[in-house]
């Protein structure tokens, strides 16, 4: 379960506060996954006490409203990433960047299909840049995709493109990259201009240890 409580001393009406929160949820907490399971108890409460000496925020288009919105998003994203960093048994933090999707919905769909794939996540636990499993995740996502337009990178290393393994990529260099704690996996679909970034962790033996034990 994910629970989040955010407090601010801003003076702001509930309707405006709700509007900002609702807008930021999709690009923060809805962009993380540890194990693809959605809890029955996830909740986020944002409370604004109005005790700041600053003037009330009343206009979404004002500079202070935009600054507040950005600050709120930074707090939400920081907390969201910390939840992934505490993913049960996690040893790697993975940022998945999808670009070139036909539309925003497809970009999200592909990103989450990769982020939720047990085979991608176990490969990363084993420090294996297994781009074939990424191809699989893209294909099963239901999003529009074309094998021959797809490119896949681990960090800055292009490992696959145009329907093939990139013949120039170095296995040794890629293996060295995969030893990092923080990894970036980029997929360009080559179809449009929509993009999405999501965050996940690897899937290790530790996850099973924790969850097999939890109710015993």
């Amino acid at each position, binding site marked *: *379960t*994910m*629970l*989040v*409580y*955010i*407090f*601010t*001393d*801003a003076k*702001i*009406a*509930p309707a405006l*506060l*709700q509007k*900002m*929160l*609702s807008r930021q*949820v999709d690009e923060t*907490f809805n962009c*993380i*996954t*540890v194990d693809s*399971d*959605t*809890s*029955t*108890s*996830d*909740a*986020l*409460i*944002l*409370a*604004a*006490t*109005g*005790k*700041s*000496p600053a*003037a009330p*925020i009343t206009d979404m288009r004002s500079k*202070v409203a935009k600054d507040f919105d950005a*600050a*709120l998003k930074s*707090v*939400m994203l920081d*907390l*969201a990433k910390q*939840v992934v960093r*505490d993913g*049960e048994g996690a040893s*790697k933090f993975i940022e998945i960047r999808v670009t070139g999707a036909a539309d925003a919905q497809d970009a999200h769909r592909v990103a989450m299909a990769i982020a939720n794939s047990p085979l991608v996540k176990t490969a990363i636990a084993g420090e294996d840049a297994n781009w074939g499993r990424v191809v699989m995740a893209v294909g099963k996502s239901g999003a529009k995709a074309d094998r021959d337009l797809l490119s896949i990178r681990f960090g800055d290393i292009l490992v696959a493109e145009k329907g093939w393994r990139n013949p120039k990529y170095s296995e040794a260099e890629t293996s060295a990259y995969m030893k990092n*704690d923080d990894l970036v996996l980029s997929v360009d679909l080559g179809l449009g201009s929509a993009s999405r970034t999501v965050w996940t*962790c690897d899937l290790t033996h*530790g996850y099973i240890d924790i*969850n097999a034990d*939890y*109710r*015993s």
Partner: protein
Amino acid sequence: PAAAAKKAHPVSPLAPAAFPDLPEIAGVDFAAAAAGVRYKGRTDVMLARLAPGTAIAGAFTRSSTRAACVLDAQAKLSPKDSTEGAAILVNSGNANAFTGAAGQASVDAIAKAVSEKLGLPAARVFTSSTGVIGEPLPHEKIVEALDGLSTTLDAKGITAAARAIMTTDTFPKGASATLQGEGGEIRISGIAKGSGMIAPDMA
């Protein structure tokens, strides 16, 4: 269920070096206690008291089997200004989910007790529960802990609050931001818990 907590897991290798020094937010006080909801000797309840006039917004799981406390909190959100105080009460150890009518009864009992203890409407008490699913919440333990919680509320208590909401988490989570408003500083401080059963679908 086990009679006592299992040995804690080591801290995640991906954890930040330390819990951040979160700025105090005027108008919020925190307290935490070990109520023995599931395990003895573990801090498992947190109370946050919010000043009169506090605006509340929320986002909740879209899960169609969401727990009573989630449905209750959703129903209590209002787009209208309020001059009343508010409170957040969270327990870890038992999710109070899939417990039938007993689930809402527990939420109501906790909200009523908090409202009486802090002198604010039950409609402004937001509760959350996290832990095992399908076991009735022993809410009387939480209600009993309110005496201690209500007398130890402290503006500096956010770190203890972040710890009290943990379940299989290996570290408490906090983040903050400060910005310049018109005529003064605006502060934001947040805490979170989460480590497993994580694929939020919030709205």
